[in-house]
């Protein structure tokens, strides 16, 4: 299955293409954790994960064409 990934800001350094947005092929039913492992995202790095706009974590199971958005908690506004 293919999922869409968006790594915001400097987290794009963990993108295989170097771009913030990319697609990735994963085993069916793969978890967010499997995705993070595949791209070599450091385990200890502080992050927020949204799957299709909902707060998620490494145990969340992914489906075809899901959008995974990962950002570093920062302030703004």
């Amino acid at each position, binding site marked *: 299955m293919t999922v869409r990934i968006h790594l*915001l*800001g400097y987290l794009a350094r963990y993108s295989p293409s170097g771009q913030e947005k990319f697609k990735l092929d994963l085993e069916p039913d793969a978890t967010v954790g499997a995705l993070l492992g595949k791209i070599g995202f450091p385990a200890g790095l502080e992050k*927020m994960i949204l799957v299709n*706009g909902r707060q998620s974590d490494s145990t969340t199971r992914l489906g075809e064409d899901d959008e995974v958005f990962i950002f570093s908690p920062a*302030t703004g506004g």
Partner: protein
Amino acid sequence: MARDYIGGRGLGVYFLNKESDPRCDPLSPENLIVMATGPLTGTGAPTSARYMVMTKGPLTGAITCSNSGGFFPRELKRSGFDAILITGRSPAPVYLWIHKGKAELKPAEHLWGKNVPETTELLVGETDPKARVACIGPAGEKLVLYAAIMNDRYRAAGRSGVGAVMGSKNLKAVVVLGEGQIPLANKDQFDQIQNRVMTKFREGAKVGPSPLSQHGTIGVMTPITQKYGVLPTKNFQQGTFDGWEAISGQTLTAKYLQKTVACWGCPVSCGRYTKIDEPGFEGEGEGPEYETGFALGAMCMVDNLAAITKANYVCNDLGLDTMSMGGTIACAMELFERGYLSEKDAGGPLNWGDGKKVVELCRLTGYREGFGDLLAEGSFRLASRYGHPELAMVAKKLELPGYDPRGLQAVGLNYATSPIGGSHCRAHMAYPEMVGIPKPIDPHEWKGKAKLTKFWQDVFSIIDSAGLCLFFAVRNLLRPELEIYPDGILEYLNAATGAEYSLTELMKAGERTLNAERVFLIRAGFGRQDDSLPERLTGEPFTTGPSQGKVSHLEEMLAEYYQARGWNSEGVPTDAKLKELGLRL
């Protein structure tokens, strides 16, 4: 008194309750303006560049807490004056010149009608090259109800119309030259805290650049609100905007950013200095930040970042609050779309997404020309004039910030109960609900949010009163738990002032300020009916996106909130609560 109220915002409400009549007409000579620094302002504590403007706001009729950074606040503090109180009305335009321990009113006829950059330049020229200026532009002179007080050219005490109050007093500017030192009660202790806090901050920065520094608030918040489906779009008719990438900070960095900008003593530097060369939108200056991008962009369906940035420049030059400006234009566009506002009244068509029109409307509003004269009254009065006040996206008549409360429950409760009306800065509940600071909480759950919002509001009043910016404080000076006890601010305050606050006392001071502001509101005639949100947000669920089917559960949260505050069911502080805090109605 200073101990009970800390300074800054606390000091402001203390003087407003003591020296002014909350029932006064905000634009009458009776209204009082308090410009107050906090005990940490200018001390070198990170982000200690802030001051607060408090008065009765003409847009809202409520108390104001208009906060700004830059360089003026430190200069004021160094002048030896912690705060300025302004009342009455001058028969002719004047400016206030503070230097060498004196404050004098000087003629300003030659400045009347000048915009913010012109005024700033002329005043620095005729006073001192090192002087710092806070002034109004034409919008403040023309009593636009959301006119700002602009300091250091680009920084705004933006909200609630504090600039119009200055204009009503014929006061064009406050100019300060601060030549003194800011005393610290225990400098060694202060330096130790500073070393520890900054070392930790710099270690964090090694992991990755601060997202705020990299792409500004507009780069952090635009993608996040869009992904959650809470980016207010088309006057809050939608929670996502198809053109969001075109108006995000990443696009700003790639196309228009010249350099990042920091306030005095700030290690974050979220400010953007930008330049636009595109025909029709040429200009340069600071901005836009997230709230401007959402208000002049997504709210009006404008996906042209050059147009948004140009509109921001116009607002800065004329002295307008970009948030209320954008909210009011969006409201006008919806009134026009629904056929309630005619092309004749609007001076032409008002179509969603027309960036050129948005720029032009900002200019017209700043000078109160043509349709700008109606826009200058804000969205509530505009929508009411055309028979549809429900289309004004406001709380206490103040245009709402860029986080839709249908998908963020505590955010909505804070909008409704913030003493100044629709503001995110009196407790930024999007931190825990959306950004995960200090840790994530379910944004759609309303239960338990009342107590948390009350707690956050009390702590944010401490940040505001101390003279700090929210950005650094929330991440670095508060306890990393949902109960964000301000341990770091306590340390800094005690070292700077020698006040030897306990944490309990400091929390009480924060709560006291909130309640003193509530006392002002009750005396001014506000009550439970004013702790409200537009019907759209409580009654019209999102039809698409991650928050599909959701509305704000304000009523349920409000009852719990009053209980947590020790207020009765009408939102009035009980006698016991007033006594506990040493306040009187």
